């Protein structure tokens, strides 16, 4: 496990996301104060989700409007059929850390 410091909690407003450049880019979202990280690539159209429309704990891909649950990675609306990988997030004080090497689809 290798957590990397990404940003401060104040850097991402509620309902917004941040793209983290990495071998496999990661999207970090602030869902009503909870920070959640998923793969930053829609499983349908190869498109970044970081700019997606956040509604509750769902993100809507801006390309073809597939929706995913940010807590479970599961598909909530087509056209996507495959779930997103989730990444572990840790909050230390006001720092947001993500383990960029531990992306995995939830069981």
């Amino acid at each position: 496990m290798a957590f990397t410091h990404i940003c401060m909690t104040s850097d991402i407003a509620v309902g917004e996301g941040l793209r983290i450049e990495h071998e496999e880019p990661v999207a970090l979202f602030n869902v009503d104060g909870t920070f959640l990280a998923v793969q930053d690539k829609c499983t349908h159209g190869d498109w970044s989700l970081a700019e997606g429309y956040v509604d509750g704990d769902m993100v809507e891909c801006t390309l073809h409007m597939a929706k995913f649950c940010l807590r479970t990675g599961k598909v909530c609306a087509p056209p996507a059929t495959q779930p997103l990988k989730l990444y572990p997030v840790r909050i230390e004080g006001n720092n947001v850390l993500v383990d960029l090497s531990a992306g995995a689809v939830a069981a």
Partner: protein
Amino acid sequence: MIGAIAIIGAGLGGTRAAQTLRAEGYDGRILLIGDEGVAPYDRPSLSKAVLAGELEHPLPLVESGWIEEAGVELLPSNPVVDIDAAEGWIAFQRGPAFQADRILIATGAQARTLPIGPSMDGVHYLRNLADSRSLAAAMRSAETMVVVGGGLIGCEVATTARKLGLSVTIVEASDELLARALGPSIGRQCRTWLNDVGVATITDAAVSRLIGPNRVEAVELSNGLILPADIVLVSIGAEPEVGLARRAGLPCQNGIIVDATGATSSPRIFAAGDAAAWPVRNGVARSLETYLNTQEQAAVAARSMLGFARPTPQLPLAWTEIAGRHIQAAGQFTSPGEIILRNDADGRGAISFRLQEGRVVGCVAIAAPGSFAFARRLVEAELRIDATALADPNTSLRDLVRMAARGG
């Protein structure tokens, strides 16, 4: 008790309806009947990545194994030839008839054909995977291409053809490209971008003759111009596929006439997607020919078949990629009204809004997908807003969506 549902058409509408039926807990029989001989697939790439050879197969519409796990009886190549509306009997091309408690007609639309002379080799249409494969093969050995019809498909294919190095000319009968789909002002911008990537465009001209003799070599236009063409793509629109419905006695006009729950005049039969003339918010019921509307109609009609009807008039929602630009549209955009242009704060993209009596009734985003997600919700809410505030990039669309959610 409903124990047998037949879905005619295994494209986007039919497949999403089957998924909705299972998601709603229906555990009776589902027949998903296609005529292309393949498992349900995603069509938008047929004019883009699949045609360009960047993607070998279009994406599947459902997760692999879902059809079997869900117990959906997929009949990919036994077309329905007749429906009996009174008793629910469905007659197939081969084998015994089937009696269904509910029938969903999701047969889509067919390409409108060129109203001149006999067709000839080298003349293509694009609706399905077989069409895309055949056009892709033809494009590999061609140098010149004429695209007849400057709508979404024509402009998308012209973009792909340029990527592959063909010399391409779009011939459009009206005075602007994309006017019906996106309105003349967006059409004019797209024409400029297409010209910039090397697509020639001719408007106010129809094709009067294909020059052969057996294989097309050129097309002659109504203005006398002759354009050499190794291939011709005819993309002059689509006609809802209503043959079965008509023979079953269902009223049709711009598609099978349904209410906003997908119900036809027959209590057993429903319709969704391009085959259906579905009620449109602030507009005339029609076949919308868009991915997202088909998807929504299919889900609504599936629930209606189970007795949970919820009227859902459609807000048109479309996307396309033309000359490298990602374009998205929501609501009514083609009728006249006040147009407000709003540039994204980052200077990359822009959204045009249409205001009618102070309310947002339509928008088109160019290279602004993040903003479009908010903009389309303003259209859904028909937010009443001051034009100056809307045009100001410093007004947050996110705040406007929140305002709309509070009742604007």
